[in-house]
């Protein structure tokens, strides 16, 4: 009797144990991370803040490697001739050499200058008008754009799912049996978040391992002087060199491209574009959303004398005197901007194909 009781208790206990183990297991959704991946540890240079990584896309070594492979793979374009890297070249801080507008697979050109890809993890919205609400969502823009890679997502998925090696790589990183668009978006975003620049001469001066020339130092003082360059209002000094807000900088009296207004559908945002980071700015010309200025000198002269008094003009420009910088001041500011070039970033083998 006693033995029987023990047997019953033991069986019940075992049964309960199994129930506890299996009871709450959810079926794994394809975008859940598979265990056994190596977390990717971001190396944030001194002088840059910690980077917020979205909980829905934790970075792994395997995910970053997959994203890098996709970034350089023309399989994502309509005729398999063009990759992300075609217009985002490392030697130009991942912008497109010195062309005003990049050429897509159908030999069509766009209307906006390819943006550099640097320190993207500090931004919340992407494209010149901030139309992409997160870095992941940005990924499908150029892939589908008729003037860029001009590809249908269903074709991309069919090609990747039929590929000899990609299905296993995706499965390892994201689980699931079929490659979905979300996985492509997440992988490329993971790679792009590793594109961190923080070892320019400016950073070295901050770290005490280099020093500014007198001209660079004068340039820095004009940069921050609210009656001279007044650059720092928007291109905030240090770390990201932008507050990433949207502004109308008076490029045209009547904007040809309404920019942010196309996203918010609010006419008071017409002609506004995202303030870009100035890191590696010497490498990323031509300048402005439409690449209208070939040189930094033209840019600075725009803010000095060229800007137009248009509706929605940024209040800082509306209130500042024109012609406040003389040609020597402009050259000083350019000398300072040149200290934001990070040669380690543009030669880093980790970012090469």
């Amino acid at each position, binding site marked *: 009797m*006693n033995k029987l*009781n023990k047997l*019953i*208790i033991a069986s*019940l*206990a075992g*049964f*309960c144990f199994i*129930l*506890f183990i299996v*009871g*709450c297991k959810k079926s794994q*959704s*394809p*975008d859940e991370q598979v265990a056994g991946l190596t977390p990717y540890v971001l190396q944030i240079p001194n002088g840059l803040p910690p980077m917020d990584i979205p909980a*829905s*896309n934790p970075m792994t070594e395997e995910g970053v490697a997959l994203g890098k492979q996709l970034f350089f793979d023309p399989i994502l374009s309509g005729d398999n001739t063009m990759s992300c890297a075609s217009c985002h070249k490392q030697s130009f801080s991942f912008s497109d050499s010195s062309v005003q507008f990049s050429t897509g697979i159908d030999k069509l050109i766009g209307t906006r200058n390819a943006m550099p890809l640097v320190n993207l993890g500090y931004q919340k919205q992407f*494209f010149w008008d901030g*139309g*992409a*609400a*997160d870095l*992941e*969502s940005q990924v*499908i*823009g150029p*892939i*589908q*754009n008729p003037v860029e890679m001009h590809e*249908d*997502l*269903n074709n*991309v*998925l069919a090609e990747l799912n039929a590929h000899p090696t990609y299905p296993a790589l995706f499965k390892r990183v994201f689980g699931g049996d079929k490659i*979905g*668009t*979300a996985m492509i*978006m*997440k992988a490329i*975003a993971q790679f792009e978040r590793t594109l961190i620049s923080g070892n320019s001469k400016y950073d070295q001066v901050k770290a005490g391992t280099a020093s500014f020339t007198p001209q660079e130092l004068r340039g820095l003082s004009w940069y921050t002087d609210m009656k001279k360059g007044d650059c720092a209002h928007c291109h905030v000094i240090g770390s990201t060199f932008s507050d990433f807000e949207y502004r109308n900088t008076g490029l045209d009296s009547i904007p040809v491209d309404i920019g942010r207004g*196309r*996203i918010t*559908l*609010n*006419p008071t945002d017409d002609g506004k574009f995202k303030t870009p980071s100035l890191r590696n700015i010497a490498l990323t010309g031509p300048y402005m959303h439409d690449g209208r200025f070939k040189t930094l000198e033209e840019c600075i002269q725009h803010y000095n004398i060229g800007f137009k008094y248009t509706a929605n003009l940024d209040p800082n420009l509306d209130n500042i005197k024109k012609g406040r910088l003389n040609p020597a001041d402009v050259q000083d500011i350019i000398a300072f901007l040149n200290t934001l070039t990070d040669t380690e970033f543009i030669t880093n083998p980790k970012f090469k194909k």
Partner: protein
Amino acid sequence: MNFIKITCLAFIAFVSLTACKKKTTEEPAKAIPSTANVDLLFSNEVDGQPIEFGKMQYTNAAGNMYQIDLLKYYVTNVKLVRADSTFVSLENYDLINAADLSTCVINGLNIPNGTYTKIVFNIGLPQDRNHTGAQDGDLEPAKGMIWDWNTGYVFFKHEGKFKNSTNQTKSLVFHFATDRAFTIVEMPLTAPLVVNGVDKKVLFKFNLNKLYTTPTNVDFNVDYNRQSSSNQDFPWMDNLKLSFYDAFILDRIE
């Protein structure tokens, strides 16, 4: 002593069995199951006519002849609401494609027994789900319902053609999108949905023509290309929001 142990373990087993259930029953019934599946079916039509794609055979209230080449919309976050305002939420994100009947049904699994007097659902995506494309299922970007230049889903699409006032065939494009377009539809059930352990079907009709009658009849000669892409589309969008209330009717419950 052993009896107590066995009782305790039996209790733990019971708890283990029931612990992970999302929805608990109000009155545990003995003989019949405490839940049942409720399917919501959407029958898309134009004033009672079934939808045939690519045929110039429909007439809107303004008297414009038109055809339908594409008709898709998101029905999300279906709630089955009881008389006391408590509800069961399906937490679904379903894309209804009128061209594919398999998409025109939303499965409500394991709905607790009870009497439901109202069904509430969204046309479109709530803000917290509308601003990233890195999503699966019916939100997969390859489904072609997301804008890649201004992250957000198109909640409703009707594309086709119409005969204009000079009898020319012109393109018809209605894309209803952005957070402003987010619409909550409440469907009071005159005959309540009683779930009592037996699977049920709730059949809705969606009458496309009703989208073009509120508050005044939409003349396709004037409004034929609305894509929620500027503030000039706002009046059209605000009217469409209201008209969704009229477009859905409860057909029957089986």
